């Protein structure tokens, strides 16, 4: 009986963790599902990281940049420096593991994709996608 209870507890815990993981991918914030972009593409960022980023800048526009060559923290420092000079950028996050850069822009900013791409290139990196989160 004890073994059965233990097994049931383990199963329940595993199922709970899996459900939590699933929630992480489909978590909604202020009524918007985070894995859909305005261009219809799927968002592939760490959900928890994304939620933390978004919750710190409510109302701002969020841009997710997919970057190639971003393998070194020391070499990615310039991203913060470069985008930090733009007064319309309110928050920056660099995720080395997924090769993504998250930017928050003040709500009235017109997102200039060419400028973003140039800033990434000025850091010696290449942009493969720029996604603007659906508001």
């Amino acid at each position, binding site marked *: 009986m004890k073994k059965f209870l233990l097994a049931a507890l383990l199963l329940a815990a595993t199922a709970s963790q899996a459900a939590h993981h699933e929630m992480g991918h489909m978590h909604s914030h202020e009524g918007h599902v985070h894995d859909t972009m305005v261009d219809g593409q799927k968002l592939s960022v760490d959900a928890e990281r994304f939620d933390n980023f978004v919750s710190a800048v409510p109302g701002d526009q969020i841009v997710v940049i997919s970057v190639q*060559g971003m*393998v070194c*923290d020391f070499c990615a*420092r*310039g991203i913060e420096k470069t985008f930090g000079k733009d007064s319309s950028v309110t928050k920056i996050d660099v995720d*080395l*593991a997924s090769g993504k850069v998250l930017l928050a822009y003040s709500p009235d900013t017109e997102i200039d994709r060419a400028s973003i791409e140039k800033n990434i290139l000025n850091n*010696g990196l290449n942009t493969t996608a720029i996604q603007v989160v659906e508001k």
Partner: protein
Amino acid sequence: MKAIIFICSLLLASNSMSRPISYVGGHTLMANSGAQTDNIYWHYTPNINYSLGLDYQRDKISGEAFPSARLTYLINRKNTATSQRNLYLKTGIGLDNSTNHFYALAGDWETRRLFAGFSAKQVSGMGYELFEQSVKLGIAPYLGAYGDLHTWLMIESKKDNLDDRRITYPVLRFFKGGALIEVGYHKKTDWDVHLMYRF
């Protein structure tokens, strides 16, 4: 004697240099302390394809100083989702004596876990000619997130035509934020400490 000191200091300074081109508008300040010389090197990156710098080296034994100007040019870069590969051409010329100069071909390939780099360098000055080749391999024992303390365990091996003997020694590299420290040790060359700050 002056030429030998100059040649040695050029070698020491540029061997330990990593990522010789920064982001556009970025400055990098480096300090190196080895058995023979100390040096301070600053470079600025006006364009993603090259950096310009000034180097000031002082010999510990004679007390003589050797200022030089440097240029690093990015010949080729290949970025992928998980790696970056670079090929550089490096040159330097003595500010007080233009016959002192060097040029080098250097390359590196890096992922978040692995590093491999090489350098082939020709140094000339006051009738002396020196050719040095080096390779460096590294592994990150853990994958830190952005902003964490990052650690690399490395091994460097080099050989030049004056000594004609290969030396291989361990190097530890740490960096956090814009600051990097690299420490190498070999019984022949003693400690070599390299500091870098990018801003």
